[in-house]
């Protein structure tokens, strides 16, 4: 019941906001914040109850939905899902609490945010392929309306592009899911059965096609080079909190999906193509870093670093699936790293995009060159921006380092030469963040920013929570690592 409550409560909150028109802005906002915190608390409670020695999936719930199709409302989590879901719930609460211009439709804005929180958690908690797909698609609908209605610039165009592009990926996913479904007897969408039976092992052409469709679908969502082109525009034109969710939560659906479906259900096919995936991941790492370095637009720059960071995650997953003799430990390290990277990237990039939102609220300007010397004007903003940037570039003691260390340690054990190339990405990331900080916060301040306001208490409060998250993971990651390792060992070694 705990998982159903975690995704059901925000949905109820969204309904309550949607049906009545009597909400005032303050009331709607308070209600949304209160409701959005509940899943965080519930998931933390589940975390404490989770037994690392126990079965792979815990807190399993099952209610038949369309039994004649083998589809059910099945929920359950392993350590990986639980970690990512808790992070997502937290990023949602933070984004909902972050002040934003709701364009005279506060009720609708908060209702859509809660709806999106509910379906996003659904993606991570589902144990049924079709249910996973249901939530996966609904998240696109929620995102479409949020970007189109509350975005700026060419918001509608960005929303269209986002929806069409990612819907293309999700339909490929649907075909692949049906392919997996048809490969087991009796036909079922139950993930546990599919993981246990590995139905497409040795199925030749069918397996290859299903795998290709799955990977394409998830690569679009992640996004990996070369199917990343929807991302920059969606990010730039979305309001800050929505960008934070897009980067912090929605991108994770791609990498989480790779772990949950092709990696776990088609281990043999995955291992055969692991090197190709790793190469694409390294391409994403380098491409994302170099293109980000070339951006003059603050938000676009951070958006491209997401491609870089998701590249690390995919590299970790590819290494974990490589199935090379005597590399079990390295592969487990890589999978743990990939999961920690997801959590870390969600918190860090979430914070960075919220900071971008604060810039937009004050100046409606993203051009890096127009800024300078804001350190004196806005010390709090500077402090949080510096902390998040350092975390993002992988400074030891912060969450990004823990993740990247695990990933590269694992990669050295399996594909050492790829690790060497990939590390270059970290170097470039460091350069681009330092250059960004220097341009915005140091040097001479242009006259026009004389009235620039520092963070308000609610803003720095939210940023402090997210920062606390990635600092704690950086300093004392044990609580997260135990949880993730429990499932990673089962997924990597138990085959």
């Amino acid at each position, binding site marked *: 019941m705990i998982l159903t409550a975690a995704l059901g409560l925000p949905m109820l909150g969204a309904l309550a906001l949607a049906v009545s028109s009597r909400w005032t802005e303050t009331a709607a906002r308070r209600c949304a914040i209160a409701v959005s915190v509940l899943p965080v608390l519930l998931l933390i409670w589940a975390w404490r109850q989770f037994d690392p020695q126990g079965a792979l999936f815990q807190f399993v719930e099952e209610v038949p939905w369309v039994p004649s199709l083998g589809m059910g409302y099945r929920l359950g989590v392993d350590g990986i899902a639980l970690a990512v879901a808790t992070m997502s719930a937290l990023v949602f609460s933070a984004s909902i609490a972050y002040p934003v211009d709701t364009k005279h439709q506060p009720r609708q804005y908060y209702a859509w945010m809660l709806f999106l929180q509910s379906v996003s958690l659904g993606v991570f908690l589902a144990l049924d392929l079709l249910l996973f797909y249901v939530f996966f698609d609904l998240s696109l609908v929620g995102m479409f309306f949020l970007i*189109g209605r509350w975005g700026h610039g060419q918001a509608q165009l960005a929303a269209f592009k986002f929806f069409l592009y990612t819907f293309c990926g999700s339909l490929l996913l649907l*075909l692949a899911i049906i392919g997996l479904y048809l490969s087991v007897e009796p036909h079922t969408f139950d993930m546990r059965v599919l993981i246990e039976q590995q139905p497409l092992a040795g199925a030749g052409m069918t397996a290859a096609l299903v795998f290709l469709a799955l990977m394409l679908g998830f690569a679009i969502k992640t996004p990996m080079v070369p199917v990343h082109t929807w991302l920059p525009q969606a990010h730039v034109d979305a309001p800050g909190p929505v960008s934070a969710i897009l980067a912090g939560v929605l991108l994770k659906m791609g990498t989480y999906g790779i772990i949950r479906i092709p990696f776990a259900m088609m281990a043999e096919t995955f291992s055969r193509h692991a090197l190709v995936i790793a190469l694409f991941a390294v391409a994403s790492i380098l491409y994302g870093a170099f293109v980000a370095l070339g951006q003059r637009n603050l938000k676009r720059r951070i958006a491209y670093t997401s491609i870089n960071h998701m590249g690390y995650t995919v590299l970790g997953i590819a290494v974990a699936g490589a199935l090379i003799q005597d590399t079990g430990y390295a592969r487990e390290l890589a999978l743990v790293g990939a999961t920690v990277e997801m959590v870390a990237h969600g918190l860090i990039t979430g914070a960075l995009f919220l900071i971008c939102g604060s810039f937009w609220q004050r100046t409606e300007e993203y051009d890096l060159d127009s800024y300078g010397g804001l350190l004196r004007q806005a010390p709090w903003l500077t402090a949080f921006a510096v902390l998040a940037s350092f975390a993002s570039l992988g400074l030891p003691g912060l969450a990004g380092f823990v993740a990247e260390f695990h990933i590269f340690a694992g990669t050295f054990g399996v594909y050492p030469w790829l690790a060497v190339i990939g590390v270059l990405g970290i170097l470039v990331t460091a350069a681009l963040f330092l250059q960004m900080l220097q341009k915005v916060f140091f040097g001479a301040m242009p006259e026009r920013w004389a009235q620039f306001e520092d963070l308000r208490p609610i803003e720095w409060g939210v940023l402090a929570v997210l920062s606390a998250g990635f600092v704690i993971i950086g300093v004392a990651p044990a609580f997260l690592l135990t949880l993730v390792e429990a499932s990673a060992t089962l997924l990597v070694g138990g085959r």
Partner: protein
Amino acid sequence: MPIGDVLPEISLTLGAVAIVLFASFVRQRQHHWAAVLALLVIGLGAGLTVAQWGGAPRLTFADVWALDGVALASKLVVLVAGALVVAMSPEWMRTDRRHGEYYALVLFALLGVIMMASASDTMELVLGVLLSSVASYPLAAYHRGWAPALEAGMKYFLIGALTNALLTIGVVVLFGLTGSTGYPDIAQALATDSDRLALTIATACVVLGLTFKLAAFPAHAWMPDVAQGSPVPAAAFLTVIPKIGAAVALARFVSLLPPDVAWRAIVASISVATMTLGNVAALRQTDVRRLLGWSSVSQSGYALMAIVVLGINDKALPALVFFLASYAIANLAAFAVVTHLRGRTALDDYRGLARHAPIAATILIVSLLSLVGIPPLVGFFGKLMLFRVTLEGGYAWLALVAVINTVVSLFYYLRIVAPMMFGSRQSAVHVLSGQWARSTMAVAGVLLIAGGLGAEALSLFTGSIRFAL
């Protein structure tokens, strides 16, 4: 004579006659009671159909009339869809001098469609197609004082006359080949050697004749005009209901053919051409009704996918009927909203609707998302089953084409959604006064969601249907 086997059809006929008489003797202002009468008749017909449910599939009336799961299921879908059309009509037709007769025509057209779905004899099929066509032409041109309605009716009639003639020629050639009009005899005669060229010609003619009712390529050209020009409730009828009968009739017909007639390839290419053409043509439309017309063409293409794998996969027929039902609900919901909004048709007039008419806007958006196949709406399960049987039947390329088309279709559906949600308007939104259209719209909207959440019920209902033959 086993009169009991056709009681639903008899009740429809008698009901239609009663409505004609009623409308002749009652004042125009009271004609909305004819709608109540029509709903009662449809309810009676549906009740009688349910009573036939559960028996073994069989043929009756000297094997010309099929009484199997497919016929009964599609009959129920047709009747429910017909009831929705009747229920959205009274306020629209209120000012028309011939308000009452409209319902009689609807009932006759329903009867024709049911005959198509149940025909197990080529003559019976021709009869069904002609009855539904003859009753539909005046429906399309019901507002005869309005030029676009006349144009739509005329186009519909001309294309219909041509394709119905082709259908008849096909039936005659088939009779010449096999010496019979009954499906069991035809199947038997075709199984032994016969003239392949003549058979190919006959098949082509019959399939072409049915593409008219399906609004599939190449006889689809009437659909956008009818959707745009005819009265909106009639457009709702014509874009949805004839399709159901025609798709089942086509499935029944092709299942007779011997495998060496490449009917799978023919149907597959019609399917691809139809969905692609419908979607591409819909992309640039600025008229919502016309856009819905083109989208309805493309949906016929999807439905044909299930017919392609007929006989390879025993789930093909359930998928076909499930998809048609889900499509019918979604399209009727969309047209009910348009009716409620007094037929508002220019895309620009939909700007800012979400703020001023939130319920109508929500139902329209949900129905469009269901047409795309966004879960958990009923349209998603329709498409899921289609994809499933197509993949299982080994036509993965066809499923891929359908996927690409679905992405394209999302674009034009969003072109309606975006201005409604993101635009703003100054002027007030005018809607039809009264509760008929409003409540039909609400019922259809609820069905879209309930059908998705309760997909199990629909799937059990269609799950084991098969042909009697």
